[in-house]
């Protein structure tokens, strides 16, 4: 099932940095500080470092797998399991991708409803948003990469806004260091898997990279950038909030914006949340594009059709959730699914690829 991709539809290797990074930064970054400090206290930043090492290893596994079969996840599946099982697994991958799309969009809409417009109708907003997404996705992968690129470049100014919080921060909050057990740190790291999920996207667009060997470096750089931003936000949040207060904030990143005051703007969170729609754009574009592509490979339909159908499906799913608890449950389910996909399924697949390669190598010679 080797599919040829025309050279002018491929992207330069260094753009992989933006794709990976943009797909990782989403809604998770707005509220990751609370769960991590619940488990690991203000040693949470060590948990971030632990999970950083883990995702770099997983990224290495993914890149190794993709370069072994020189293709995307469907090629990997076919390489290991053959044609039919790979199709069934493909359906599960589509479901997983739709799960993440719905989780991201619904939690973003929840944030808007809590912070900006309590009366915002989920359906209408998601309808407009999905039209935007479809407009981007039908433009092809290069357009999606462009959206990822701008969603990293344009909101850079927000990072500097957090510096305005520093006068109110007290870094002695972080002391004493290492007052949590290693198990606590690991538990903290586990809570981070949701915020860091998204780097697996390279499994889907690997064949679209011009020189995949050169892209490896950039993929790891993308991960590093994500880790750095999370570390930066975690340290500032830990310094800004006393421990008890942090537990009362679901979205500490947004709460920190409230203190920001400029001569012409107060309450920066409005601008921040509105701008976040640009940031979650690739979070939805890339999975939707990927699932549409997999559906095309499995069912042999046009990607335009598959993407539109999947978008309708996700639109319906997004509109179903209405209460905070149901969203919470759903998002944590999506988080668990992400954890199992990235940290359990990918290593298993990697081992399977190794075995399959050994078997295939030995096969013809013996």
């Amino acid at each position, binding site marked *: 099932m080797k599919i040829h991709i025309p050279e002018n539809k491929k992207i330069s290797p260094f753009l992989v940095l933006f794709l990976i990074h943009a797909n990782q930064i989403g809604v998770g970054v707005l509220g990751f500080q609370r769960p991590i400090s619940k488990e690991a206290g203000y040693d949470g930043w060590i948990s971030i470092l632990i999970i950083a090492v883990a995702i770099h290893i997983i990224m290495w596994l993914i890149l190794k797998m993709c370069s072994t079969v020189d293709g995307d996840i469907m090629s990997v599946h076919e390489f290991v399991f053959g044609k039919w099982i790979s199709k069934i697994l493909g359906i599960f991958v589509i479901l997983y991708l739709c799960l993440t799309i719905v989780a991201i969009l619904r939690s973003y809409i929840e944030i808007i409803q809590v912070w*900006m*417009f309590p009366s915002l109708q989920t359906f209408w907003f998601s309808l407009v*948003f999905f039209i935007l997404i479809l407009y*981007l996705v039908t433009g092809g992968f290069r357009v999606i990469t462009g959206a990822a690129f701008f969603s990293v470049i344009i909101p850079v100014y927000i990072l500097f806004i957090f510096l305005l919080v520093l006068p109110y921060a007290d870094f002695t909050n972080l002391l004493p260091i290492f007052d949590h057990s290693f198990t606590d740190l690991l538990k903290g790291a586990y809570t981070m898997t949701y915020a860091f999920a998204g780097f697996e996207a390279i499994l889907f667009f690997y064949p679209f990279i011009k020189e995949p060997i050169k892209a490896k470096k950039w993929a790891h750089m993308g991960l590093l950038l994500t880790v750095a931003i999370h570390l930066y936000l975690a340290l500032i949040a830990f310094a800004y909030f006393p421990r008890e207060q942090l537990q009362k904030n679901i979205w500490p990143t947004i709460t920190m914006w409230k203190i920001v005051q400029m001569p012409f703007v107060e309450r920066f969170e409005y*601008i921040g949340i509105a701008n976040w729609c640009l940031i979650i754009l690739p979070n939805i574009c890339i999975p939707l594009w990927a699932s549409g592509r997999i559906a095309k490979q499995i069912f042999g339909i046009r990607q335009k059709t598959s993407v539109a159908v999947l978008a309708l499906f996700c639109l319906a799913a997004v509109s179903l959730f209405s209460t905070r608890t149901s969203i919470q449950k759903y998002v944590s389910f999506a988080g668990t699914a992400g954890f199992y996909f990235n940290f359990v399924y990918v290593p298993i697949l990697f081992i399977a690829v190794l075995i399959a390669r050994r078997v295939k190598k030995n096969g013809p010679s013996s």
Partner: protein
Amino acid sequence: MKKLFWRRKKKNNDNRDKRLEDLLQKSKDFRSVSYKNPKTQISFTLSFIETLVDEKILHESALPKLLEEKFHRIEEVKDILPLSEVEITNDKDQIEQKLLNGSVLLTIDGDKETYCIFSAQKEIVRNVTLPEVEFSVLGPKEAFVESLKHNLNLIRRRLPMKELITEKLTVGNLSQTCVAILYIEGIVDMENVNTVRQRIKEIEFDEISDNSYILQMISDNSHSLFPQLLDSERPDRVAATLTEGKVAILVDGSPHALIAPTTLVECFSSFEDYLLNWTMASFIRLIRLFAISFSVLATPLYVATISYHYELIPEDLLGTLVASRGAIPFPPILEALFLELTIELLREAGARLPTKVGQTIGIVGGIVIGTASVEAGLTSNVLLIIIALAALASFTTPVYRIGNTIRLIRFPILIFAELWGLLGIFICLCFLMAHLLRLTSLGRPYLEPLYPPRQYDLRDSILRLPFTALYRRPQYLRPKRPMRFNERDLKKKKDIDE
């Protein structure tokens, strides 16, 4: 059988000849005059369309020779006439076309098969004048005129090189408009030339009045508001872009040239940027960027903050706003739409009127309507300032078409701002971004060098770096010779006290 066939064909030809003559006879400006050469006693007829022919050429150059020199056969006429374009032909199509382009048809009585046709075209061309749309304080002051010949002359004078190629095509079923494609061989990517040629050949329309027709017909996405080909009235700008490796399209009867491919960034650069020192030019480009974002976003931001997010505004500023809006009976969106429409009316009225009246209308309209509506309590002072500034800012665009684009894209953003506040503005901007990402110009990405990011092209985009830094031609054009000059040839900078 063969003979019959031949005869029928001949008859057809005769009929056609007759039809041409009959049709022409209906026009009062068609002339057919017979003369007799006093030396050889041969009588000949000149047929021409009086209004197209330069009488001076006919009477001072052609006729004296025809009457004084000896000739017996039509072939000999070619040697007598002191004109550059003289042809002996019997191709009826060619004759018809040339006759309608201002040539004179010469026939000798007794020889009905061969014709001599010589060009005596009268050209009514206005003088080369100042550029009006792309005026610049510094630099050359000539602009294109309506004649293709003159325009080609203006460009060729700036690029005296054999590699400058002009291809000619004819488009328009009725108008038979001449279109020239210009490029420099050895620099240009021939793929671009082929695309342009192909697209122009595929044009199906009866009359092509201006290059704007061509622009709309060969654009990659003809529904888009953004111009995907740049039009310029400055020969200097066209010559400069040709050396970069672009393709220029000139249309007979149009005082503008089209430049392709282009990018969004180029739409915001003026030729004067290259005439100024690079720091100044970069500063002006940044000002323009600010002006354009202000012009697009100012009113929507006003509506969004006043309608939804007044908490966003610091207390002191809010006081000023509340004071100015206190007695206004309308919601912010109506107030904004009312003023925006007023400005649009003024612009449109100003554009349709003669220059002097237009200016007066602009000033009178602007001041009188603005002040009166504030005094009447229909709009607030602050919004009036914002809208006036936004309109002013939108005039900073150096390319007329992109200025129009900016005029229009404000309105959807305004409506989304009313709908969802800041969120609506951002959603709308995302739509804009998606649209721009999808756009291409001759298949080249429109947002280049911003995306795909190219660091060399960035040197002449938002900023304009000095000429020593611009040693590469724009990469998105894929020029055959990518270097303008070798950077190593530059003189080394001296160290202190050397």
